């Protein structure tokens, strides 16, 4: 492979990424910030599929995918990059990414993220929560706060989705927004709730966009644009008008259990994440 050492990009990367390098906010500087970054995506399901595809397409240098589950027929309506039933989902996406963009270094974890293996997160710059359950969401948040990693989190159910950037620029964490988990008796299993695939797809592509924006924010030439950064949440709801909007959320909370100056939670104690594995509060199911 020819390498243009002076620029930091190999020659074939100019043809692969040239169209996005024409964007003034990207250019060579932005492309290098993608190439030099390490991003971990937890969950290779409905959110993870589109998110990983666009991160790989954009040229994130090192991409990690974490998922212990195997592909089932009932996933395919929304997890559109899988096709082989019984194959581990992280492995399935490894095959996809290596076909789309062989230039990406891939780390595949076919295990569940737990308090015991949380240290794998320390190797990466940005964490993307593409999981589907409330316990994982609190665990990933706490790991990100303790390791000081920005977190791009999204979720979707039925015809709705939500996205927010957490633990970034001294902004709030998940526990700032949701100090108390929903009570277990208000929860229902994932499999009891449905979701439209394209709605999850919108959220997953928005997640990839936020990751790339965080990397572009680091480029000196974009420092003026970053002034406009606000703690916010994107809300999508297919049958509402407006269907999609971005709302302003609270700042970091002084009494947050984990991200405040004197936090209650100082280490990863497994008992903090022992709610139902797939807890979705659904008033309709009570």
């Amino acid at each position, binding site marked *: 492979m020819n390498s243009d050492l002076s620029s930091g990009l190999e020659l074939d990367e100019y043809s692969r990424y040239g169209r996005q390098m024409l964007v003034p906010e990207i250019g060579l500087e932005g492309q290098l910030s993608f190439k030099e970054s390490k991003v971990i995506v937890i*969950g290779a*399901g*409905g*959110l*993870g599929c589109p998110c990983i595809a666009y991160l790989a397409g954009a040229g994130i240098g090192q991409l990690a995918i974490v998922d212990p589950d195997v592909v089932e027929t009932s996933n395919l309506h929304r997890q559109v990059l899988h096709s082989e039933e019984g194959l581990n989902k992280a492995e399935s996406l490894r095959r996809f990414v290596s076909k789309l963009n062989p230039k990406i270094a891939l780390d595949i974890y076919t295990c569940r993220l737990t308090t015991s293996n949380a240290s794998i997160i320390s190797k990466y710059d940005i964490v993307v929560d*593409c*999981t*589907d*359950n*409330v316990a994982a*969401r609190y665990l990933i948040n706490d790991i990100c706060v303790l390791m000081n990693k920005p977190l791009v989190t*999204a*979720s*979707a*159910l*039925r015809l*709705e*989705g*939500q996205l927010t950037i957490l633990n970034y620029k001294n902004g709030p964490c998940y526990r700032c*927004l*949701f*100090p*108390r*988990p*929903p*009570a277990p008796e*208000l929860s229902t299993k*994932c499999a009891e*709730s449905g*979701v439209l695939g394209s709605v*999850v797809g919108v*959220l997953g592509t928005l997640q990839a966009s936020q990751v790339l924006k965080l990397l572009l924010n680091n480029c000196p030439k974009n420092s003026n644009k970053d002034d406009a950064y606000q703690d916010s*949440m994107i*809300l999508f*709801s297919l*049958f*509402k008008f407006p269907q999609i*909007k971005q*709302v*302003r*959320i*609270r*700042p970091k*909370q002084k009494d947050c259990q984990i991200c405040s100056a004197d936090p209650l939670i100082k280490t990863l104690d497994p008992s903090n994440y022992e709610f139902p594995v*797939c*807890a*979705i*509060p*659904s*008033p*309709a199911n*009570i």
Partner: protein
Amino acid sequence: MKIEFGGGLEQLFDNKQTLELHFDEPEVTIQTVIEKLAQICNELRSNVCLFLQDGLVRPGILVLINDADWELLDKEDTVVEDKDTILFNSTLHGG
């Protein structure tokens, strides 16, 4: 004023994504609005409504007044008017 529900909360309110509420006073606190909604919810669900818990909005629900988190305003004490839009949005965990 316009009340909106998201994240499944509309299921507590007869599957209505929006409600119009009017108060005799020109300005009320959001706490008054919440009590009125709890009453509507209780009536719809025969006195068992999961909108409140210990008098407070249930964990996992964000309250947004004109697209801003009430924690940026005066929380329960925020004064709202007829022209305001209040969104009660339950967090989602699926993916």
